């Protein structure tokens, strides 16, 4: 498998919720229409967000899933404030992002020549995020096996933190990628997963939004704008609604 290849999603769906009605079998039954259990339309029909369903890995290999899990549970550790980044779905988020248009940089200018520039000239690496993860994770694994004779995921938490700090500061070099840039990418994507709308696979049950007091995808604060310096405690709302909205699964 080439480093940039991606498993084809076996099904694409807008949301994993079973509450979404598919308009199957609704034709040829005369003018009457029975609506039961869910509304007779598909959300985002005209302009859908690109999301992939749960239950399968689209890009990451089992070994990579384990490594990214071991990273994201240290970047965002479980503590009194929240569950870990791993438990919040950051690995699923990263996997689906890499499988989509973000992973292949298909929207970005990727023409050469690639040459290093000044710090002000920004990212000039020729690799797309899929390649950066594949090579970066393999290089990290090689580093850990060489230095500790263990896989990264098998290191105790303190030692993982130490390795991550070394990547962050460039204290260690990786074989195929720039260590600092690789760390920055994984950190960025982990935070995206933790704080993005749950429809993308992370931020499980809006855990980060509840933690911060961010009400999410609400669209009207006209009743609240004049309530100065008051804690509002508004329960957050995802693009997909709230789990309480579902009477049964």
């Amino acid at each position, binding site marked *: 498998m080439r480093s940039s290849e991606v498993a084809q999603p076996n099904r694409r769906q807008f949301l994993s919720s079973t509450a979404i009605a598919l308009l199957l079998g609704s034709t040829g039954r005369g003018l009457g229409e029975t609506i039961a259990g869910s509304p007779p339309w598909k959300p*985002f029909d005209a302009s*859908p967000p690109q999301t992939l369903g749960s239950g399968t890995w689209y890009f990451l290999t089992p070994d990579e899933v384990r490594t990214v899990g071991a990273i994201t549970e*240290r970047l965002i550790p479980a503590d009194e404030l929240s569950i870990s980044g791993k438990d919040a779905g950051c690995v699923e988020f990263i996997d689906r992002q890499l499988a989509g248009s973000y992973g292949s940089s298909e929207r970005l*200018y990727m023409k050469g020549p690639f040459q290093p520039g000044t710090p*002000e000239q920004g990212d000039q690496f020729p690799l797309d995020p899929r390649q950066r993860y594949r090579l970066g994770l393999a290089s990290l694994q090689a580093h850990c096996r060489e230095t500790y004779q263990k896989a990264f995921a098998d290191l105790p938490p303190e030692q993982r933190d130490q390795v*991550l700090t070394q990547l962050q500061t460039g204290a260690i070099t990786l074989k195929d990628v720039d260590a600092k840039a690789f760390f920055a990418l994984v950190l960025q994507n982990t935070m995206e997963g933790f*704080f993005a709308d749950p429809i*993308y696979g992370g931020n499980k049950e809006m855990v980060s939004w509840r933690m911060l007091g*961010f009400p999410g995808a609400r669209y*009207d604060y006209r009743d609240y704008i004049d309530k100065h310096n008051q804690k509002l405690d508004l329960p957050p709302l995802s693009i997909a609604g709230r789990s309480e909205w579902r009477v049964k699964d």
Partner: protein
Amino acid sequence: MATKLPSTDVVVVGLGWAGSIIANELTDQGLEVVAFERGPWRETARDFNIASAPDELRYSQRQELMLQTAQNTVTARNTPSQTALPMRSWGSFHPGNGTGGAGNHWAGITFRFQPEEFRLKSHLTEKYGAGAIPAELTLQDWGTDWSEMEPFYTAFDQLAGLSGRAGNLKGQIREGGNPFEGPRSEEYPTGPMRQPYGPTLFAQAAKDLGYKPFPVPSALISEAYTNSLGITMGPCTFCGFCTNYGCANYSKASAITTILPVLTRKSNFRAQTNSEVLRVTLDATGKRATGVVYVDTSGKEWEQPADLVIVTAFTFENVRLMLLSGVGTPYDPETQTGTTGRNYAYQTANSVQLFFDDKNFNPFIGAGALGMGIDDFNNDNFDHSGLGFFGGGSIRVTPIGAAPIGYRPTPPGTPLWGSNWKRQTVKNYLSSMSIGCEASSYTTRTNYLSLDPTYTDRLGRPLLRITFDFSQNDLKMSQYCTDKVAGIAKAMNPRQQVAHPMTGHWNTGPYQSSHVVGGFVMGADPKTSAVNKYLQSWDVPNLFVVGASAFPQNPGYNPTGTVGALAFKAADAIRRLYLKNPGPLVSA
């Protein structure tokens, strides 16, 4: 070889604010207009549906409404001696795409420039003496003045439904408005927006210090409004998904909410979307535009002949199209000759962050142009004698929303991950605010636009190359103005405040402002300007190039109100003067 199409009266290149305004005015005149847009058609109900619009990952992080760099980008360097490299993803600025252009994802802050700006060089020379202007600057007058601009600002106000309070109505200074604005002939069409806590606290502190706070003029309107074309808009709900997003409420004025619903229904108008104009075609003399050549999504090229060509494709593409079409002479920084690419400028972004223990700002209640500001330290509103710089900034608190991938303020020294990162993030999320100072950017000899010698777009055409760095003038100004902001912050008594004046080199990475201006500037002298005061090319009289590309330098204000006014100004000149007597409207 391009396939030639039947001729039309007018071709418009780009259906953002400027192109839509001009197309609408010229179709009212009875002309047949074909408008080209390199991006897709965008529609509020379909594309900015309330169910899917508030999506930070999609719109702010992955930048779905913006031009994709795979289609077109720029190269950048700080000085003429460096090798420019491509911006592979947008950082410093966010060019738009599709109908509505950057006017869909803009913030909506809509100042008018001040009367002094239109004759800046003359004004500063008269007031401080020619010797006081730093030698590095290439400031210019606009070739127009306030009396010529004001009616077109008013036309834009009434199209967009702007919310605010006049500070100078027909020469009368009014309490609660901006006393530094030029005299306006009409009050704002809609009243000022209600204000959340942060701007209110700031305005009180500023007032106590003797400054003159006012509601930031906003194109996210405060109440239902039916505009000058008969299109109705709804009130802003402060949803906090505004800058970088399309508006689902029909509250944010844009070409798609205020013009295109009418324009689309006219029988003498046609929009050609997903069609990128490659060049303006000229006749053998080079003095007359014959139309444009564009490419469709299949890669096929078409030639659309026209009697009149209007280029309204955002600053970058306006200048690039002129360079690719051979209109005017490319600017040479060594000899300071040529006007295509001359006087490129930006905006200088400064701020002070405030961290409190005892306050809750509910920062998710926001909108791109919601807030309070002062103009006491903007442009030449304060005495610059002996300061060693000119210019200044609009100081304001405008909470745009607080979607947390991007908004997680923490004090310097906070770790970027781990438990301590999380504690600090939670502690400061609701209780922090920031005072911004969006400041002027004054032009220099070596800040300019040209074609890149190496990097090409997907069609093999050279990318536009930006050569830009902050002038010493602007860096001094930033320090001075940020100190003033820090003084206001101190009076608000936060636990901690952190000043961020602009320092060092222009960096393409962090977002600063999409207010890129100049490169095809207007003026009275064809040696130093590319278009006259009607936005008509000096070299090709049936070509008008309209947008912020016409600004000779950038004051401490957002550009869109002036872009809108210039579009009305150009359309008026075409309707009133050019059609009666096609040819140069100003003799060189």
